[in-house]
């Protein structure tokens, strides 16, 4: 249900009061009834005392007992800007994010040209400032052209605003390059985010190896391709001390490596895509290309292991890995189609499936999309706290809905959840104190 919203009679810097809310702050673990006051773009106050009473001259939103929590932070979003704007722009991605309850997106450098220079970081930031309705941060390339050979100007890129460094969809196969990047980045405290898939083992493969691939007659890759690179990287972290984040893991063996690294107090963290938490290789069914992903969907055992790893805290972050592809790249035989699925608009709803199924609690689930990525990236958001940015979402956990391609705001429609039944809907998304999405009402503020 859309929340009631009525205008107060105040000036331009009016406050907004959320009353009668279920306040969930994954950072502190709080889940309690209360209210929250937003003023000047930040959380001015919150707690039980604000549950029913709004200060004067505040615009009041009655939350009707629904969940008010920090907006989601998605640290892996691919767009087509610059170079492939027909797939997605910063503007369309941000609209999709707002509708999905994502208030901060980190865009990947896999564009044309690759974001490997200061001027391109500036470009993204300017375009985002002018066109995006959510916060946009740039993850810059850690090697020139994402070729895995020469490191980029990590120091200058960081000064320009790059929030972390990655080699995008490609693993760096040269261990010396990887070592030097980790070593050099350490001096700047920069986070290195790495996609771990051995490029030689994955070459020519299109899905997970196993019974399904064999029946479909498709070339598969063993999940060891992921773990091999991860194990090497952990060794390199050990000798360099660089901050390292495995961008999206997909199998139990990889989690064991991360768990061991964390036990040795190494600065290692990892993420998982929402797809690998909620789908498996059987979903590919009759060669459905929207389920062709990188890393590929694995077995049900691996999916279940990822959920357990999330609940246990081995996995730090959930990403949408939003990767817009159009008919030109997806309407092909499975083996010839592109990898990738969109996910910004379905991230929260798909994640809530795990909660509704009883696979994981709400707090650890939300933490992996709010407080944890905020901590990794050094962002002030991702928590309900006085003074924190008013990046908030109001969520009806129970509302049923069906994903409809026609209503997807992302420019590309390659959603693996198309026509899926979901339970849980974002009612309102607020970024820096301004509503940017409202369900059922005017779509954009």
């Amino acid at each position, binding site marked *: 249900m859309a929340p009631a919203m009525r205008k107060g009679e105040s000036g331009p810097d009016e406050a907004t009061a959320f009353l009668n809310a279920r306040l969930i702050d994954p950072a502190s673990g709080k889940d309690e009834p209360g209210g929250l006051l937003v003023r000047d773009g930040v959380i001015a106050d919150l707690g039980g005392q604000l549950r029913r009473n709004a200060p004067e001259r505040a615009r009041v939103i009655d939350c009707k007992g629904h969940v008010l929590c920090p907006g989601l932070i998605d640290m892996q979003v691919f767009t087509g800007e610059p170079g492939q704007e027909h797939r997605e722009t910063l503007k369309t991605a941000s609209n999709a994010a707002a509708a999905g309850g994502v208030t901060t997106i980190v865009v990947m450098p896999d564009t044309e040209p690759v974001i490997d220079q200061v001027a391109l970081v500036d470009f993204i930031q300017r375009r985002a400032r002018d066109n995006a309705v959510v916060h946009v941060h740039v993850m810059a390339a850690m*090697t*020139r052209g994402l070729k895995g*050979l*020469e*490191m*980029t*100007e*990590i*120091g*200058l890129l960081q000064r320009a605003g790059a929030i972390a460094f990655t080699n995008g969809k490609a693993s760096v196969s040269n261990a*010396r*390059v990887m070592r*030097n990047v980790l*070593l*050099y980045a*350490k*001096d700047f405290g920069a986070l290195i985010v790495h996609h771990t898939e051995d490029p030689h083992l994955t070459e020519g493969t299109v899905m997970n190896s196993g019974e399904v691939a064999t029946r479909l007659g498709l070339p598969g890759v063993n999940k060891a391709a992921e773990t091999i690179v991860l194990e090497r990287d952990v060794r390199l972290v050990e000798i*360099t001390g660089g901050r390292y984040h495995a961008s999206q893991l997909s199998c139990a063996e990889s989690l064991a490596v991360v768990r061991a690294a964390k036990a040795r107090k190494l600065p290692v963290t990892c993420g998982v895509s929402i797809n690998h938490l909620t789908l498996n290789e059987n979903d590919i069914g009759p060669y459905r290309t929207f389920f062709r992903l990188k890393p590929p969907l694995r077995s049900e055992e691996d999916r279940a292991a990822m959920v357990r790893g999330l609940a246990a805290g081995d996995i730090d972050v959930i990403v949408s890995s939003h990767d817009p592809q159009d008919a030109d790249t997806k309407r092909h035989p499975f083996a010839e189609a592109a990898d990738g699925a969109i996910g910004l608009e379905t991230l929260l709803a798909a994640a809530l499936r795990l909660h509704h199924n009883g696979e994981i609690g709400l707090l650890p689930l939300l933490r992996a999309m709010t407080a944890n990525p905020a901590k990794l990236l050094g962002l002030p958001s991702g928590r309900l706290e006085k003074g924190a940015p008013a990046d908030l979402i109001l969520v009806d956990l129970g509302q049923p809905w069906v994903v409809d391609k026609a209503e997807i705001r992302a420019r590309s429609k390659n959603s693996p959840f198309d026509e899926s039944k979901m339970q849980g809907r974002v009612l309102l998304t607020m970024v820096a104190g301004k509503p940017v999405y409202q369900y059922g009402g005017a779509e954009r503020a």
Partner: protein
Amino acid sequence: MTAPITQASFARRHLLTCEELTAGDISALLDLADKAADNNRQINKKRDVLRGRTLINLFFEASTRTQSSFELAGKRLGADVMNMNVSHSSMQKGETLVDTAMTLNAMRPDILVVRHHAAGAVELLAQKVDCSVINAGDGAHQHPTQALLDALTIRRAKGRISGLTVAICGDIMHSRVARSNINVLNTMGARVRGVAPSTLLPPKADRLGIEVFTDMNAGLEGADIVMMLRLQRERMQGSYVPSTREYYHFFGLDHEKLARAKPDALIMHPGPMNRGVEIASTIADHSRSVIRDQVEMGVAVRMAVLEAMARQLPNH
């Protein structure tokens, strides 16, 4: 007119590494070099300490300033000097280092000055010949006369070495100049800092006797001496350092970073400089830059080393 040695004397057959030099050795050489420096400012610079002696400059790696400095030092002391640049001759014909050494040994030189691209090569050669050997640079290992000329430059400008804070900045990993200077400066009682990105610091760099800084502003704070190192071009292309632009921004000596050092801090560079890479052009030509003094002291120090060695040669 041989200058009398005042304090301790330098009594070694070879000069291969600074690690083995005592404070007495270094002081003796610097005292001798002081006199040589004064001598070099006279109209008649020629002396006869090495008359009748043969000095061979054996350079397996191209060098302009070190080789000419040794050549001049040898000639001013009256030696017959021969320059051999091996990089383009016998090594290309497949001769091994030891064979080359034996061949040269048969020519009966008195002093061999050797530079080689491989660490340890000069020491290996020294084991095979009968004459004195001076290491003019072996790989990333040692370059003793550079450290001595730097020490002389510092001592003449500051009146002392002990107690000074010296910041050595740049490619410490690949630098024989850094290693030699760290040895000499520590032996002489200076506090030595190493300033570099982690990719240009050798593992366990602190064990060399330096305090390590990866932030140049912090590393230069209160320094008496700022000693810049040369960054090889092939190391600026993304393997160790992303680009010359980024290197200059974070590790190039400019006025802003220099302001962190003491107001009377000296600026040094072993040369050849990459202006705009490790050092701003205006800093290189700064009134506190002693880079040209270093070149002058280079000849004096090499004369001192040659003279001290001449005393150890047979039939002296």
